[in-house]
Structure formats: C-alpha cells, structure tokens
C-alpha cells in the first residue's frame, strides 16, 4: 500500500517502487523482419530514458537502443533484425532484450524471441 503514516512533528517518508517489464512483439521472426519491443513501467515519470540491449541468450550483444524515453508508463520501439555483420551461427537464435533505466537501477529481460537467421527454402 502506498500509504504512509506518522505523528505530527515528523517527516513522513513516502517510498515508491518503480517497475519495468519488456516484451518482444513476436515470439518468432525471420532475419530482416521488423519487430516491436514493448516496454511497460510502473511509477516511472515521463521523460525517463530507457536503454534497450538486444543480446543472444548466450549474452552476445547484438544492438543497443538508447534513444527511448518513457511516456505514459510505456515506450514502444520498432527494431529491424539486421545481423548480417554479427557473425552469428546460421541457425535459429534465441534473442532477448534487456530494458534498463539506469537512474532508477531498474532492469528487466524479455522472454526469448526465436529468430530464423537463414531464409526458408520452399520446395517447388
């Protein structure tokens, strides 16, 4: 409960706990597709910067997005999967996004998104 009580002649220290969550818009995607990254927060003021780090499940950093700011407890960003220069193994990659608000020491990891790095081949 965000209710704080004390007697006169004291300072009542109200404390709130900010929260953050992040999800991919897709559970699975192909390389070169554009997907959404959806950040939701609790008790975080508008204008607070949020940094997104896109990493393989093994921890290899693929991209950093640091221009986003929270507005109305949310920040949504589109992200184009373009890892041609990343020297990844040509197999399905599990990729997570970490959302961080440095000044509030908040971080959250998404569930992994499965990315097929090699375009599908269809039979004739």
């Amino acid at each position: 409960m965000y209710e704080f009580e004390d007697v006169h002649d004291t300072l009542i220290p109200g404390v709130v706990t900010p929260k953050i969550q992040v999800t991919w818009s897709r559970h699975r995607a192909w390389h070169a597709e554009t997907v959404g990254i959806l950040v939701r927060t609790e008790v975080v003021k508008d204008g607070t910067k949020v940094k997104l780090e896109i990493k393989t499940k093994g921890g290899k950093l693929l991209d950093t997005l640091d221009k986003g700011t929270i507005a109305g407890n949310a920040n949504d960003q589109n992200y184009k999967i373009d890892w041609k220069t990343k020297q990844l193994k040509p197999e399905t990659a599990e990729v997570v996004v970490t959302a961080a608000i440095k000044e509030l020491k908040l971080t959250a990891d998404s569930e992994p998104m499965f990315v097929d790095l090699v375009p599908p081949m269809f039979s004739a």
Partner: protein
Amino acid sequence: MGKDDLSSVKVECPQGKGALIAEVLTYKSGFKRSKHEPLSGVKVKFYGPTKNPDQNTGGNGRTTVLNGLDPDSYTVSLEFTPDMTELYDVSGSTISTAKTVKKGKTTPYPFEVPWFWIEYQVQYDGLKIFVPGIDYVLRHKKPDPVDSPWTQKKTGTTGLSKETEEKVPRGRYKLDLKLVYEPEWGDPQVEIDKAIEIKAAVSGFDVGTDGSIQIVDAHTLAPALHTIAVKVAESADKSRRELKTTWTPTKEQLKDLKSAKIAFRAAVGASFVFSEPEPVFIKEKYEVVDGDGTKLSTRIELYFSGGYSDSKQADGGEAEVLTPWNETVARVNLPEYNGNPVGLDEGGIATRHFRMPA
C-alpha cells in the same frame, strides 16, 4: 540583545512602582533556534497585589505594559483557545511564570510555545530521488478520542522536494498516494469464453471510486478492445484496496486484436498501470480420422505459425486444442503414424498435406 527584545522595553513608572510586560512567541517544534514569530490572540492573566484585567496578545505577541504595580511577586498565566491548543504545543510549554516585579523596573514575562508541523516526501525506494507528479491525499486523525476518523486535510501532487505544512493540528497524519499498481491476471493465459480474474492494487482512492479496466492489444495501447467499469473495493482480506473483476472474453470483443496477446490497463482517476501481456487462445475441436474416415484415438501434435506448439490426446477421433489467436497451424504431426502423410482440412481452404517424420 536586539532593540526589539522584550527586555529592552522601558516605560516610566510612577515613583515606587514597577511594571511588567508579557510576550508570547512561537517557533517550529523541535527547532528552538529557528526563527521565532509573535503569537497573537493568547489570553494573558495577571495575578498579584495590584489587580489588572486580562489581555490578549497583539500582533507583536505582546501585552501592553502594565505599570503602577506595587513591587511584589506577580504570576502571569496564558490561556489558549481550544483551536490554538490543537495547533500549538501548549501542554509541553511553560504557560505560567511567577516573578518579582521591582520598583522602577519593567519585568519581562517571555513565553515560547512551539507550533506543530508535518513534512512528507516521496522518493524511489533505496534512492534519494524525488518522484514528481503523483497525486496524493494528506489525511489527519485527532489523538482524542482514540477512534477519531481520518479526515482529508489536503490534496496535491508530489514535487521535487519535501512538502512542509506548518501550524497543523496535533495527531496522526497519513500520506495516501493515488496510485494503481501491481496488475495481475488470474491465469497465465486468456481463453475465449473462459472467465478470468483481473485485478490491480489501489491506494489513495476511496472505496466506491469509479475506475476502469481496459483490455488492449498488447502491441497497440489504444483504442481499447473492451472496457469494463469497476469500482474501487476492499480486498477480501481487508488488507488493501483494489480494482477487481472477472471477465469472460468473447471473439466479438477481441475482433480487432491484431497481435496474439492482450494486456489490461487498470485506471482510477489519472493513475493507471499496464499489465503484462497475456497470450490469447481459442479452443478448437479437431476431428482425427484415418483415410477411411475411422475415428482415431492417438496423440496429435500441432505446430502454429507463431512458434507455439501443443500436444493432445485424441479420444474417439476428437481432440480439443488451444489455438493461439490469429495463428494458423504450420504443421501437424501424429507421432504414432510417423512416416505417413497427413492432411489438414481447415474448412473453407484447400486441404494441406504434410509428410510426417519417419
């Protein structure tokens, strides 16, 4: 001593007589060295051989000078109105003093009565960072009687520094932040035509206050797919207030859902919170038959376009499978018939055929 100190007050006394003057100052309780202010409107009573009528302190906190007093011991006592007793620490202060008034001198009777105050602030947990923009209610409860009700003293919005209320009534104070928080789905997934509980904690809003729960596409926060009016209520265990409802989603309500996930936005007043996204499923019935139309009892594995898969046992040729919203079957497999072809007739579109692994 400054020129305005009480001890500097000089008046002409008739020969062989003395004089006195009383002054009441006030200051912030607990901060005796802070700036003192005159306290007007305090009744001052005088007791001694020379009688004088009661006086009220003026704008400078002082009585007029009483002169023509026979030298002797005089007691000066203060009397506060009930309202003042609430705002100033009368019981913890000296409000009656006896002194000897000497001839040819003006004897000062200084009194100091601190005022009550309350301060409050809102910071992030574990950080010395103020949180602006949260609406709040400051409530007060009198110390007597013990079961006095909470009354609203002030409303406002938090800023980037602590707030101070000076000269407030004694008693307890409660800072209620108007927040909606801790959104919670009752189940890990949403199923069409199956009731699900939705709730979020609420603080700072009275029971009965109108709120709403909007069901939104998790990927596009507006417009709402469906809105449920809910009032703030006490939780079953009375430990907190909450917005709570049970919702049975229908296909019609979610007809504009583009993604496969929904979230809810719980709001009261200007405060709101988004839930985590939840996947939406719709239960679909599959008929499982062989090439001759014989109903099979076998395990069926379904792989959907979004990456979700499910495995169900078909009994008597029927299986109910939870299908992710807006996803199609990418592949179907009957493990007990590996190596054989399988066809999927979805009705309305051409039957698709798959070769199951050997």
